[in-house]
């Protein structure tokens, strides 16, 4: 009886939600925070009625499609689709949509910085997933707004034909060696990398380091993955911040590419959150559960990503462990974005010209 009432409440809430302009945000929260024993059945039966899911994510198509396929195999009654773009663009899109009161997104999975932007706008709503229990506290939002799903590790990537094994840099300071003059490329918008190291080293050391790095005549390229491709093609011998999983992929394909850890590695976590006005909250929760479960994480790991689940090993495992990594508090970064951007432009982008 209670169950029927609960289901009825959910259904009624959903019905109200579908009426334009009259929905209160509560129905989504109700679904998100539901934690009774019959949660799975409730979610599934309601999701059956919803039938759809829209994921906003920065996962590449190469990765998203198998993931969605696997999810759909598990829940065949949910038609899962992805809206995919670069992480900044997705954040921008969902923020713009909410400002215009258009509510399309169900689940949002972005970098910590960009999900931070989204959270600042009040777009996320806290959720409870039984799968989140497996994750350490550092990988979760205290209030339950997000959980980490995977991470991009920024390492030094180099072309094995153009860089002799003996010359491979072993630390950030090695990058200041004159042999790298004009031979390094940086990604066009990697302020996060600069900011993370800046926070870690402190103002004095960071300023001196980056000023000297800038005088190395850095080339600028857009896109981390594109950067990795260019290195493997031989356009640029070295970059201090490529995604290690991408470098690994290329290496596996036989490209003359390899990567090495410079201590500390800057990690950019990717996190998953639930949209406050998700049109399909039940399907959304099922998806979040899946993404956080060992099963879903395993799918990502098999695709070569560095996953966040403590008990799911990346493939190969050394992608995600064996080195020290640092992350940056998104709030701090966003608050000082202009400053970091200015430093980025001044020290690295313009100095090299």
């Amino acid at each position: 009886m209670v169950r029927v009432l609960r289901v009825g409440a959910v259904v009624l809430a959903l019905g109200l939600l579908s009426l334009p302009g009259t929905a209160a945000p509560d129905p989504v929260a109700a679904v998100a925070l539901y934690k009774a024993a019959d949660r799975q059945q409730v979610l599934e039966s309601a999701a059956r009625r919803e039938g759809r899911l829209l994921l906003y994510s920065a996962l590449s198509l190469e990765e998203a499609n198998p993931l969605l396929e696997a999810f759909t195999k598990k829940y065949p009654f949910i038609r899962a689709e992805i809206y995919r773009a670069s992480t900044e663009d997705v954040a921008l899109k969902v923020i713009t949509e909410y400002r215009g009161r258009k509510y399309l997104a169900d689940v949002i999975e972005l970098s910590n910085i960009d999900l931070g932007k989204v959270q600042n706008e009040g777009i996320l709503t806290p959720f409870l997933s039984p799968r989140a229990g497996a994750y350490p506290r550092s990988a979760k939002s205290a209030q339950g707004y997000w959980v980490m799903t995977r991470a991009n590790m920024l390492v030094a990537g180099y072309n094995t034909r153009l860089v002799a094994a003996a010359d491979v840099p072993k630390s950030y300071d090695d990058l200041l060696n004159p042999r790298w003059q004009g031979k390094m490329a940086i990604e066009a918008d990697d302020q996060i990398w600069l900011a993370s190291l800046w926070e870690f080293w402190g103002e004095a050391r960071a300023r001196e380091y980056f000023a000297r790095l800038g005088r190395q005549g850095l080339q600028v390229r857009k896109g981390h993955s594109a950067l990795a491709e260019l290195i493997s093609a031989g356009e640029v011998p070295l970059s201090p911040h490529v995604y290690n999983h991408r470098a690994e992929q290329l290496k596996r394909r036989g490209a003359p590419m390899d990567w090495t850890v410079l201590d500390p590695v800057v990690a950019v976590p990717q996190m998953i959150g639930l949209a406050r006005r998700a049109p399909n909250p039940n399907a959304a929760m099922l998806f979040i559960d899946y993404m956080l479960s060992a099963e879903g994480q395993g799918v990502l790991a098999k695709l070569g990503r560095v996953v966040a689940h403590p008990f799911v090993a990346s493939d190969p495992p050394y992608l995600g462990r064996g080195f020290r990594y640092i992350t940056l508090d998104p709030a701090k970064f966003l608050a000082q974005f202009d400053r970091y951007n200015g430093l980025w432009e001044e020290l690295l982008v313009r100095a090299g010209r």
Partner: protein
Amino acid sequence: MSQVLPPPPLWRGRSVLERPDPWRLVPGLAAAAAAYLAFSPVIFLVYGTLAHREPGGILFINYLRAYTAPGAARMLGNSLAYASGGAVLALLLGTVLAWLLERTNTAFRGGLYVLAIVPLILPGVLFSIAWIFLLSPNIGLINMAARSLGLASAPFNIYSLAGMIWVDGLHNSPLAFLLMSAAFRAMNPALEESAWVSGAGLGTGLRRITLPLLVPSLLSVFLLLFIRNLGNFEVPALIGRPAGIEVFTSKIWAATRRYPLDFGLAGVYAVTLLLLTSLALFVNSRLVRDARRYATVTGESGRGRVRDLGLGRLLVGAGVLVYLMVIVVLPLGVLLWNSLLPFFMPPSQAALAALTLGNYAAAFAYPQVSRGLQNSVLLAAGTAVLVMGIAASVSWLIIRSRARGRWLLDVVATVPITFSGVVIGVGLIWTYLTLPVPIYGTLWILLIAYLTRFLPYGVRACSAALVQIDRALEDVGEVSGATWGPRFRRIVLPLLRPALLAGGTYILVVTVREFSSSVLLWGPRAEVFSVVLFDLWQSGLFQQVSALGSVLCAGLIVLASGFWWLSRRHGLSPG
């Protein structure tokens, strides 16, 4: 014998000859549509520049910020240099080729007609990437070939202003070619023939007769290309950024991706672009007013009079071949080559051993790809038809009617050229998130974006042709008793057919590759092919992008060939 006629019975209404012509509404509606399309994003954009500011800032603080930012002057200089350089190169190539195709019996005319359109088909992203792979200072294939021939260092560096102009000029030369072809076709060949029989050789005739007569068209097309380049995004992003050359669009793009959202700044740059362009368009409309002087189609057919180049034919044919190679074979070749490799490698033994079709399999397995293709084709067809329909009416209003302020309509209809796709995208997002029209995230908003973006090209194409058509041809129709509707349908439209087809073709292919507004406006299930390509590129999946690109090009070459064959059957092209 005067007799007062009884008043007509009330039920009779007007006589047959005075029956209200519903077609009269068409130009007005078309003008209204054009105005709406042009104004709605502008209004919201300007509103944004004034409204989106920190609390306490003065009304125009965004403008101050934008214009006093360091590097603003250099950005302006770069933008102008890049835009005009690319326009000049494209115009040069396009005009020469149009003349060769329309006025001589050069070899490879058929091939030229078909293949010259190919660069239009390639998404700007693909074309730029292909040239990066060809002219990259270290791994560019052309540079490597030059080095293997003995040159000490790579002669070409694509990451420069010259590189940007080169890629852009090449990419736009088909547009110049199409537009100038239409202009040539509308020109009375007797004007050139009379110079010929008067004793002028080829060079003198070109210099003293052909070129001066073409000046209005040339200027018009130059302005179009210049404005278009100002709003170009692909080349500045892919080639300009690494070269350290910033232009308006890259600045706008950067401003739109800032957080906290700074649409104000983006809007200011967009508004500045708009002002620059309106000026250019105003100049152009003054040019076009002098239409009567250069009316050259007076009922004589303008087709089929070609000049025999004699021995020069081979030399010229070789030149055409080189152009086709540079424009089509090289970029497509690089794409094809890249698509068959697991990662980018210059040609070598090892590379040949590593050839694989895996990229094709992977790329076409994505459901987004087939859906994107479908949507792209659908939108392209719809856009082409709607644009040319509205454009024909609007350009008629601008050039033919005696309505007051029609120069204003010219400005309004053509102003969206100034909007980079980025800017239209942003403007439309704000417009349709605010207005209660539920098209956001659907194919409809993409259609509106394309209509907004490409209507100016349709109007330009129709105007360029309409300028060359004597008003008398329509006056005859009017005197013969035809109201506006039949006159327009049966006299103007058929005479405009070359322009309509050329313009429609251009819009068809260029809509498929449009992406800078698509990338902001697409939604789930409403993705288009170019966005899918860009997405894969951003994810660094170069090989799969190359695979898709190769297939796209192959498909569109087939399409273009089919179109050429069809137009030949109906005697539209110089067979």
